[in-house]
């Protein structure tokens, strides 16, 4: 199976799921992603599309919980990071670190 790296928005959603642990569902993920993506505006629809794509790639798994009254008796769909998702996030982090070090070295932001 071909391993696909995660795109920038996918990285944000994966990070949000990782940070929210057992409370990662649509509304909370959207709020966390909006916080991480500031000053960019993030729509709830874009988060749903990305969650579906991440689930198709096997990066996250989801399940429906019991209905709650504050949601009009509707269930929440919770998300959990899978091993492939962790790997994608780790690789993205390593790439970002390498980019940061290279830019810092060239610009003299980092002391060698």
């Amino acid at each position: 199976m071909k391993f696909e790296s995660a795109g920038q928005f996918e990285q944000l959603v994966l990070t949000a799921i990782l940070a929210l642990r057992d409370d990662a569902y649509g509304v909370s993920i959207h709020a966390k992603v909006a916080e991480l993506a500031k000053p960019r505006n993030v729509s709830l629809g874009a988060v749903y599309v990305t969650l579906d794509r991440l689930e198709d790639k096997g990066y996250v798994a989801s399940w429906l919980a019991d209905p709650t009254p504050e949601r009009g008796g509707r269930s929440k769909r919770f998300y959990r990071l899978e091993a492939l998702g962790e790997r994608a996030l780790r690789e993205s982090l390593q790439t970002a670190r390498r980019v940061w070090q290279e830019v810092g070295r060239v610009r003299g932001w980092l002391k060698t």
Partner: protein
Amino acid sequence: MIEKIIGILIPPACREEVLGDLRERNEGVQLFLYDALRTLPFVIFSRVRRTTDPVVLLMQAFCCYVSFLTAAWFLDPKLIGDRQGLLRLGIPCAIALVVLALADAYADPRKKSPLRPFLAVALAFAAVGIALTIYPVLPGRLVGIGSGLSIAFLLVLRMMFPPFADRPQQAQGPAFWQKQEIAAAGVLKLTAAVAAVLFGVSMLPERMAAPALLFAILGGAVYWATRR
């Protein structure tokens, strides 16, 4: 009332959680409606993407177009010679494929029915019939025979490759594993490129068609050679 209408518009596979999220985020009716209308296109697009297998869709498009082409060949050969004719033959195919994709997206994965693939095809060609009755771009007899042939082809195809929601799910397996793979990578892109070139050339005046086709073939050959 508004929640019920929005609920009908959301594909059943994700209706529960999307409606719940919208309800939790929005207190008033206006905010709920505004948020729902902003979210709905994304949800529908995502569901269509998940339930549509591009390779099967391409096969369906090919079968459908060949059916209408065959019907035109026997009933109205002048249509095939006409520059706009080949384009007009694609209209019922496009309508049928859009309705089929939406029918698959709106199928409830919890309710399994052996009739679902056939009902979706019937719905698609009912839509073709209605659309071409209102706006008759093709003769009625041609639409009837072309639709009949297409239905036969599509039923066989959908028996061989059932809609995505009806296929057995792997435990925790990534969904894209279940989609058809093309052995030679890029066949889909190549088919789309050839179709785009032929369509573009058919739209040009006759004296420009041959040089344009030659130019496209040369361009394609250069691209292929440099890519290798």
